């Protein structure tokens, strides 16, 4: 077997491991759920309302740049169609696609994509141990913010 076959197979296993990890949910104790919350309050999962990239506060160049619209359209398509289909469960509080979209809105296309790629690269369950305790929310997600850390 050639070398690149080995790498392809290992890459496939790595990807499947990531997907399985992403789809794992935190086990919920049903008894405690009933006691803690009124059962009538529970409702079915409604996907979050998403909007296409807002370009209201951008400069004229930002508004006429076709790449902004292309990236916004691709992200919108991913969020509305693909993400719902694969039931993606991001380890970050603001999901990778939403984070990228907001970074593009705030910092422009180049920095936004770089920051989005970085979060995508770090989107695995083990990353949680590298964050300080106060950055982990109660539902075991990393609290990330769009602005700079203060």
């Amino acid at each position, binding site marked *: 077997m050639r070398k690149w076959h080995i790498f392809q197979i290992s890459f496939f296993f790595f990807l499947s491991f990531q997907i399985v990890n992403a789809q794992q949910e935190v086990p919920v104790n049903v008894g405690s759920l009933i006691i803690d919350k009124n059962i009538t309050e529970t409702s079915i999962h409604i996907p979050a309302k998403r909007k296409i990239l807002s370009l209201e506060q951008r400069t004229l160049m930002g508004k006429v740049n076709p790449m902004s619209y292309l990236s916004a359209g691709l992200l919108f398509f991913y969020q509305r169609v693909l993400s719902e289909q694969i039931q993606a469960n991001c380890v970050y509080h603001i999901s990778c696609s939403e984070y990228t979209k907001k970074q593009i809105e705030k910092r422009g296309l180049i920095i936004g994509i*770089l920051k989005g790629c970085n979060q995508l690269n770090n989107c695995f369950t083990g990353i949680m141990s590298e964050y300080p305790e106060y950055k982990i929310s109660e539902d075991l997600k990393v609290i990330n913010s769009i602005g700079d850390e203060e």
Partner: protein
Amino acid sequence: MRNSIIFLVFFSWQLSAQINKEFINHLSVQKLPAEHFCYLNSLSVSANQDSLCFYKSKYYLQYFDDSLFRANVFLCPTLFFADTCMINYANWRYIKEKGKTRDEWFGWMKANESKYFFFNYLNRYYEAGLNPQTFNSSYLPPELKNSFVKYRRIDNRSPYAAAGLSILVPGLGKLYGGRKRSFVNTLFMHSMYGFQTYESVAKLGFTHPYSVFSLGLLSVFYVANIYSSYHDLKEYKIMLKNQFYEDVANYYYPYSESCILR
């Protein structure tokens, strides 16, 4: 008769001017914010302004309102610095805050330290967070040592060096910044992208769309890794500092809570 009327008028005026400390303590312990607020505002203007400001600042500290608390404290610094419990509680409350609010408060405390001659551990810990290299960690309680030592180790490191290391080996800057798992993941992903790109260029040629796409993807992730190594290390330092302050606040919580409610 005339004297007794004058005495009664004077006495009733004095009654409205007095602050009932026991009643305020009761409202504070029972946690009745609406009643507490109404009582403080019902007090006459002729009441002792220093005391009134002091009790108002205590109220705004308990039901935390940063701007109103500071506005009242700045009017009665002598009473505030005489109350060690309140200094403790205020410091504890502000050390949990993030960014500019915390820095402004402790800056004001430091400016008044020599004037009012007080000592507080939380002020020392705040300064330890600002200059971790000069602070002697042997004075810290064991519960705070771990987070402080971790913060001090990372604080030395330069974000530019992290970016430079990431240029040499993808992810090495993250290892330098104290993130081992991130380093392993980044290196693995980049080697995968690299081999995929190499394979496509070797098999299909440099000008094939798939090769161009692979090369573009690799370049974006490579540049993102360099940028993020620089940016993440800066953010990581701030996060570790905040975690240290958070640990300090948790460590001192029981003492501070009992102080303000007395």
